[in-house]
């Protein structure tokens, strides 16, 4: 009687079925259940969504038209790019000020009419100047030659005295490569003068 009751209880509490089966043996279990298939816990995934929709078939003609349109658009863009080239950042110094260009005619000075003597005088002054600069250049070159000769002589003498000292002398001096010097100016600097800073507005455009 007790064994029969236990079977009934098993039938009701299905969740503990498997454990019971294990306890009592599989044969006892099979003999009780009422379903056709063996009652076991489901291990596969549960599908909790509606079944997939069936894919709508496209009209092949329409699809081809769409692709053609896309292609045409790209081609158009390419053509435009080729026509314009790369768009570069404008350089103000080259392009100039548009507003100024427009009113350049009203900013023009009156042309000075030179007499023959005046233009002749100017030409002669230019020639004098050129001659003066040439002499200056020759003098400078001579001085530089004199200096380099003097240095070469010094290095040669140093080498005769000691090869080691010579090698030290021909090394690059990295400190004097950073050498900087300001001047000369037209009037000497005033000691302790605090120069006033001008006010300015930075109008540089950012690209």
């Amino acid at each position, binding site marked *: 009687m007790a064994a029969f009751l236990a079977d009934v209880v098993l039938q009701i509490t299905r969740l503990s079925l498997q454990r019971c089966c294990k306890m009592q043996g599989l044969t006892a279990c099979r003999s009780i259940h009422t379903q056709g298939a063996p009652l076991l816990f489901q291990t596969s995934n549960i599908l909790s969504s509606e079944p997939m929709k069936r894919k709508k078939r496209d009209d092949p003609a329409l699809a081809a038209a769409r692709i053609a349109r896309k292609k045409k658009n790209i081609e158009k863009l390419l053509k435009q790019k080729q026509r314009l080239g790369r768009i570069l950042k404008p350089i103000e110094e080259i392009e100039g000020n548009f507003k*100024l260009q427009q009113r*350049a005619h*009203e*900013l*023009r*000075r009156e042309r*000075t009419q030179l007499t023959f003597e005046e233009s002749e005088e*100017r030409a002669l*002054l230019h020639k*004098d*100047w050129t001659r*003066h600069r040439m002499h200056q250049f020759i003098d*400078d070159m001579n*001085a*530089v030659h*004199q*200096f380099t*000769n*003097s*240095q070469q*002589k*010094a*290095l040669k*003498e*140093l080498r005769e*005295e*000691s090869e080691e*000292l010579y090698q*030290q*002398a*021909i*090394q*690059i*001096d990295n*400190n*004097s490569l950073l*050498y900087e*010097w300001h*001047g*000369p*100016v*037209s*009037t*000497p*600097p*005033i000691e302790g003068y605090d120069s006033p800073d001008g006010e300015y507005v930075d109008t540089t455009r950012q690209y």
Partner: protein
Amino acid sequence: MFFPCCRRIFLKHSHSFEKTVRLSWLQTAASASNQNPRAWQLYSAVCLERYPVITNELTPLESKFKALMQLMEKENSLLSDHEKRLKDETAQAAKKHDDDDDETLRKTQYAIDFEDQWENEYNQFTPANRITDADINNDTRSVNRKLDRKLIFIIKQKLGEKEFWVLPQGVRQESESMRQAAERVLQSASGDKLKASFLGNAPCGFHKYKYPRSVSSHIGAKVFFYKASLKSGDITSGADYRWVTKEELKEYLVPSYLEAVEDFILEL
């Protein structure tokens, strides 16, 4: 009786004389192999320069050409905004004067007012004089003289018996490069408050002179010149010194020395 005695003495002495001579010769030969008395003594010297602070006075040709270039620049230029405004306003004023209009439309500030204002501001500033006190007093010890010229630092140094005006020089010490020696020489000649920057590791000039025969240790001196430019500071050592231009060097230096020095002092 006298004669043989004398002869004996002489022989005795001559023998000892010969001995000492041979000995001293041997001694010099030995010291020659150690010290080499025929060597030159190496000196590093520094040519410290103060570069021109202000520009040269323009020559007549330069000032004439400068004026011409400025004139041509103006002729080829366009009117500036200010000039255009000034031109318009003067034209307007002339027109107004003709019409004898009342001054209801008078502006607060005209371009010409700006010009007056600027001129006032300019006149308030007085630039420093190009001729300094040192020029007026002809103070050759001042570094502030002849601002438009390159100045060279010379010093009175004792070479042998006598004193000479030279670029500061000193003997190279053992384990010192020529450049390091030059830096040390400058420091000892000027004191430690002066700052100068040396230009390169290579010497820029050379000069040699022989010692008198009484000096047995060396033949003479080989002087290697290094260039340095003055950055800041004053001379604090007690030495007698001068700041002179290239032309003024003639008054101070020995001709042969001057010849070597003139080659590397450039005035460009």
